[in-house]
């Protein structure tokens, strides 16, 4: 009996300890966004109203004030590039995954699994390797520092992930439901669009959100490939290093704006994470 109580206490203590470790940094950023310069520079303070007086000035500046102009362009860019590339990658990825699951491919020595492995293995490519060349390539194409260019780059960046996830989902869909339609003379494209995609909607959503998070957070390629017109939020935040002491309050507020959608997505996604996506990962 004592053993069990002890065990329960231990488990909860451990879980709580890790929760504190996981949450404290986020908490720190949240309260930093409510501090004024003095509260920051006079050493750390931990609890609002107790050891410092929270202020909304950083948030006001960002949402209504002078920083609004600064943040608007990158926020729009991040949204357009994120959504654009994700929609594209889910479509292209779904097509490829469908092709790989429903046809027997024989291109020379290569079969389905070779092709799938080839596509998915592109993911191990470090971005810095292609980044240097993409810089020169987009320059020639006139796509450097454009949203279109970034959408294409991120589509390629996320494609391996999208194909892999969609492949898993499509494999779980029994082919019989398609057969009736095929017998009726529907084309493969129509079958994919009208039957397979609606059936695999949960998987589609999960893939969409995964890819969106990656595109939204990506930094290195954006750093290399954007200058002015297509700068994204991570680039804006990274550029806040200034020669005056870093303005933690406004930096924190900006970062929180960048983080917020992703946190929401995580809360939505976490069920899929376990049940749909990762359950088969290791087997």
């Amino acid at each position, binding site marked *: 009996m004592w053993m069990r109580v002890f065990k329960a206490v231990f488990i909860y203590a451990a879980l709580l300890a890790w929760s504190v470790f996981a949450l404290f940094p986020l908490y720190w950023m949240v309260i930093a966004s409510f501090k004024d310069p003095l509260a920051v520079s006079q050493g750390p303070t931990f609890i609002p109203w107790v050891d410092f007086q929270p202020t909304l000035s950083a948030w006001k500046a960002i949402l209504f004030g002078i920083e609004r102009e600064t943040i608007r362009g990158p926020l729009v860019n991040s949204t357009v590039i994120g959504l654009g590339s994700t929609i594209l990658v889910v479509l292209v990825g779904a097509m490829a995954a469908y092709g790989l699951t429903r046809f027997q491919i024989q291109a020379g020595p290569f079969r389905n699994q070779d092709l799938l492995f080839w596509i998915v293995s592109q993911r191990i490519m470090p971005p810095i390797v292609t980044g240097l060349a993409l810089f020169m390539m987009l320059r020639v194409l*006139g796509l450097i520092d454009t949203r279109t260019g970034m959408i294409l780059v991120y589509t390629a960046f996320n494609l391996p992930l999208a194909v892999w996830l969609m492949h898993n989902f499509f494999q779980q869909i029994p082919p019989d439901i398609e057969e009736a339609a095929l017998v009726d003379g529907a084309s493969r494209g129509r079958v994919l669009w009208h039957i397979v995609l609606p059936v695999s909607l949960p998987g589609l959503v999960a893939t969409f959100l995964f890819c969106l998070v990656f595109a939204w957070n990506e930094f290195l390629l954006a750093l290399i490939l954007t*200058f002015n017109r297509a700068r994204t939020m991570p680039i804006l935040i990274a*550029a806040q*290093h200034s020669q005056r002491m870093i303005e933690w309050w406004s930096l924190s507020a900006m970062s929180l704006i960048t983080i917020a959608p992703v946190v929401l997505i995580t809360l939505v996604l976490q069920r899929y994470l376990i049940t749909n996506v990762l359950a088969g990962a290791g087997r």
Partner: protein
Amino acid sequence: MWYRSRGVCFLIITLLSISLLTAGASGQQKRFSGVTLTVITQNPPYIAKAVQMFAPEWEKRTGGKINLVTAPFGELYSKLMSSFTLGTAAYDLSLFASAWMGDFAGNKYLLDLTDRIKADKDLKWEDILPTYQQTVTWGGRLYALPIDGDVHTVYYRRDALENPKYKAQFKAKYGYDLRPPQTWKEYRDIAEFFNGWDWVGDGKKHYGVLEAFKRGGQAFWFFMSHAAAYVSVPGQKGNMFFDPDTMKPQINNPGFVKALEDWVALVKFGPPGMINFDSGDVRSQFAAGTAALALDWGDTGIVGDTDPKSVVKGKIGTIVLPGSLEVYNYKTGKWTKLTKPNVAPYLAFGGWVCGVMATTKHPDAAYDFCRTIAEPKNSYIAVTTAETGLNPFRASHFADLSGWKKFGFVEPDLSSYLGAIKASLSHPNAQLDLKLPGQARYLDALETQLARAAAGEISPKAALDAAAAEWEKITNELGRDKMRRLYREWLGLPAK
């Protein structure tokens, strides 16, 4: 007949002048309407502030629009260089470091502004100090407008160094009088003496010295400021960077090694974390009263005396960089002992300048915006405004004290401040900052090794040897003969 033709002439002239006048008038109103200029410079506040200050007025006057893009100092060069290699105009103009002139003008990335500047009487080009005229000159042509003057000076706390009690204690400890440091040895001793105790009397720990050690945070120039006195034999050229005969790097000769040993030893006389400081930290920390000494550009004096949060207002002395009682002559390979310190003020960085991209579609508008910042009246406002990061570069900036006082400067800080800057600029042994193509590569190679030495990863000698080897590689890659020609040209030596 003639009167008729005269009448026609008159008519034509009248019409012409009317049309010119109206064109002029409407041009004055909307000379650049519909033009958007993309300006890139470093993060606010410093330097970017100048753009923010003058943009609204310029927009109103010309009908144009300013789109400001900023990058941290450490990435500004990279952003500019990669945009230049694009071949299209990602930016129209830039406020950048004159040290990069070798790359930007040398590769014709910048628009040649010579004719525009020559034709621009209101700019008062001759009022700009010759040193700074020099920084924007490349191959006899002008490629930018100076908007900033830059020289390193040393700042000290008068309340600390002039305190009789501390003077007595200092003398007892070191055996000579405490005074504003004349040599780097004295500088070190003062830093050590004031480090780690409460010499202000506010119950807090205070420190000896503030300098920038951070890689990508201007560490290169801080180190060079120390080295200049050890290696600059008065009247001899080519002491600082390369041997002008062979283009062999000088940076690992005994003079530089001594300077790096000095510099690395200072890390422990500063506040914790000083190894990650850039010049911005030096300014804010000095104004917060952290340390007794600081080495920096003109901004530390400005922030210290004019920032409302500063606790050191009216307590700042400014002096020319300390000297050295021995100087290393690279030609003879020997140290020379001296009785009077060898002083060599270092015109570190050479100032920010405003240049127009060769690829811009709006060269006239871009030049007009640059000159708006550089012209006498506005530039005086800029150098006497907080957080522009711009320091005096015209003779008139030193002549008129009213703006400085309005700015918040108090005596005797102001006289000491302007005096030290002026004395540095006019010093016969003043050393110019390196201006060569590939400057950023040389700088990064050295700064990487400086950072390693400061972190204690390797010895100063090993660090400088490694840097020199790296410099050799860069020189070989860029072409030794070409670099030698450019370097000699820059020094004003005959071609070889």
